[in-house]
């Protein structure tokens, strides 16, 4: 499944860049995020609880950052497995400064889900995967545009996490 999107974020490009290279911040945007092991600057393992329809699975993803070209391009690939299911993903994003306080993010993602989740949730797969992927990137924007003190409520993340988990 191939998805892509574009969004304008009311934040300077440097701030956006910093955000997307911080695995802890990115992981919090991932659907059903539970825990995270950081193995190195470009390798980390988040655990995500994802459901499609009635089927739920907890994935441990092995994420590699690659092709990082500061200040405007980064890509990652991830592979994860859960009981009877697996996910393989490649994603890339490009940043473009629109002004000093506004940045455009263009992203693409290729997601392959295999196993029980794909078999049992086939009817819902494309729609769910697209929604979760779009929300993942949209969450960046929400977090970056949130008021400075990080007392920001977790509401932007919570609804999709509960729906997805």
């Amino acid at each position, binding site marked *: 499944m191939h998805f892509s999107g574009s969004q304008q974020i009311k934040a300077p490009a440097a701030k956006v860049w910093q955000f997307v290279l911080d695995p802890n911040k990115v992981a919090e945007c991932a659907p059903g995020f539970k825990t995270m092991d950081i193995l190195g600057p470009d390798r980390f393992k988040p655990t995500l609880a994802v459901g499609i329809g009635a089927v739920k699975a907890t994935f441990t993803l092995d994420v590699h950052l690659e092709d990082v070209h500061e200040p405007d391009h980064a890509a990652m690939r991830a592979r994860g*497995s859960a*009981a*009877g299911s697996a996910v393989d993903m490649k994603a890339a994003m490009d940043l473009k400064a629109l002004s000093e306080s506004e940045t455009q993010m263009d992203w693409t993602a290729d997601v392959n*889900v295999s*196993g*029980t989740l*794909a*078999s049992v949730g*086939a*009817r819902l797969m494309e729609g769910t995967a697209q929604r979760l992927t779009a929300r993942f990137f949209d969450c960046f924007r929400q977090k970056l545009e949130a008021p400075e003190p990080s007392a920001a409520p977790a509401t932007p993340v919570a609804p999709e996490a509960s729906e997805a988990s």
Partner: protein
Amino acid sequence: MTTETTPIRGMGHSVKRKEDPRFLRGKGRYVDDIKLPGMLYMDIVRSPYAHANITRIDASKALALPGVLAVITGKDLDEAGLAWMPTLMGDKQMVLPVDRVVYQAQEVAAVIATERYIAADAITLIEVEYEPLPPVMDPFKALEADSPLVRPDREQKTNHIWHWEAGDAAQTDAIFQQAEVVVKQDLYIPRIHVSSIETCGCVASFDSVEGKLTVYMTTQAPHAIRTVFSLVTGIAEHKIRIVSPDIGGGFGGKVPVYPGYVIASVASLKTGHPVKWIEDRSENLQADSFARDYHISAELAATKDGAMQALRVKTLADHGAFDAAANPSKFPAGLFSVITGSYTLKAAHVEVDGVYTNKPSGGVAYRCSFRVTEAVHTIERMVDTLAQQLGLDPADVRMKNFIQPEAFPYTSPTGWEYDSGNYPAALRKAMEKIDYAGLRQEQAEKRARGELMGIGISTFTEIVGAGPSHTFDILGIKMFDSCEIRVHPTGSVIARIGVQSQGQGHETTFAQIVAEELGLPVENITVEHGDTDTAPYGLGTYASRSTPTAGAATAVAARKIREKARKIAAHLLEANVDDLEWQDYKFQVKGSPGRSVGMKEIAFAAYTNFPSDVEAGLEAVDYYDPPNLTFPFGAYICVVDIDRGTGQVKIRRFVAVDDCGNIINPMIVDGQIHGGLTMGMAPALMEAITYDENGNMQQGTFMEYLLPTAMETPVWETDKTITPSPHHPFGAKGVGESATVGAPPAIANAVVDALSHLGVTHIDIPITPWKVYAILEAHGVAEL
């Protein structure tokens, strides 16, 4: 003596099924009902990928879970030489993979635990690392030179499994070159799943004191399984007992040996405890063997006035990753060559190529008598295609081309000798019953008003009862079948049969055969089957073979008993053996009806007062090797209405005239036909298994895999003609699959007929509302 007052109720009686009281009261004993002391439970880790290398399996977390006793992987089995097993088709199949998986949901490892739920939890704790490989999903692409290999373990570095053909290619080609008319049609018969209500499973119990392995197993062929188990494991065959208890539907899906049976047996040997394994519904749908999946290209040569002359067929058969169907050795494409159907043809040539793909094993015979469904669908669609092209009525074209009743025994262009038939009589009966002429008139009127109504015919010939030992074997074991009968002193009987019932009603119908032959009441006859320690050897129940083979053995064994009984009767009546005749279920002295003796008195005498030159007791066994197959047939007519707003096809009427020769129990035959018609409607309108490009099976639950319920099932109108088989001991033919084979083309022909005036010439099954609506839209007749 009360024999005279208790009715015999042999052949032709609608005796209520002896097995039903236990089923209706919830007292059936299925594999999952079996609980043995100390029994452990097994669950299976399955592959999410259709094609991948396995780089690591880490079971440590699962083994740390309290209640988990063992984890079994391919490496463990490999050390015991059991990582691979032979299939019933002479291929080999992974039990558990050592380093790679070849279809999604393939077994990867097994957990043995003290409770079912602990086992289910533990499989989620086993970490398996995969390296995905490109899956081979399309059988046509699989044959291209640059395709990845599904089975690099084989010597032949190709995805092609086998080529098989029948008929005369040169003669067929010559007719095609001269033909006035040639019609051509590609057909795809999609992959479907057996979906019996009971999934597969077993309880394996190794007794370490006796050194004996007992496996209660959802199998249709317990004896063959015992032999294969013995050959694979090296355990002596008398130390293996396979019990097939009550089985909740087989339909061909319970003929193959599934890895779970073998792993559970190994687990019992390893732990010293009985081990139960039962698939859940999604595992059953995703991983068990599949049926159909034939890509067919057919051509029919004919004259301008519709006389059929020759048939040419090329087929690609998608067999998945292992050739694990259970077709007879010489017939890798089953009996597909019966594709010339009920029609006289001068020549035919049919080719099938088996192909490996990254899907579970295909080619299982799902209620289709070894690929006859695919054959019948093809020829019945081709006859209609010819009629449509020539502007002729499909009933007329059939009548014109039928093999005539006086032409039997008839040798088909592909070499089958049809034993008997009367096709025009069956079609006439169906046409009268449904008022064919009236329907055509109604259709013309409706068409003028823009309403879509279609009439479809299928006049199929089945080929069942495999089979004669000179032609048929599975792994070398000839396809005879057997019966052993013992008459007790008080005139009751136990009959043990080599076949096995999965709902066919053998405990009733086989008792009726014995009742008829021996003149003893059906109530007093017990039929046992499915336990290899007690039943005589047989090849099992599938392909509508039970009545033609074991049914015949039962009659012949009973007749052997009757011949011995004649000697005892002569002794009792103080008459000469040659002076006795079997009349009205009794031996009587010719010309003296008053001097007679029944089987009940003879049975008592066989133990208390037998002549000096006769052994005591009254029993016999017969292993019956049928001289030929039997050829049931039928004429089905279906009327459909199509909703222009939704594309929904509604079966308004369906008349099924079946001929299965002499009938043992009309009620059971009717039940078989009702069930078969429903199971024929389902693939015609609803069922199909599909895969995405990554090899994920897309119908993992009954939400996506549509089975018909009472809501979708129309009222079936059944009738019969009777053309006895000339070679079967009591003239029967087998009926279990006739309706499943005959129904789909009747429905498909009806839908195409409803749309033929729009220029529609073919629709592949399943004919879903979506497919029909797209056609309606394309022709501008859809209602919004």
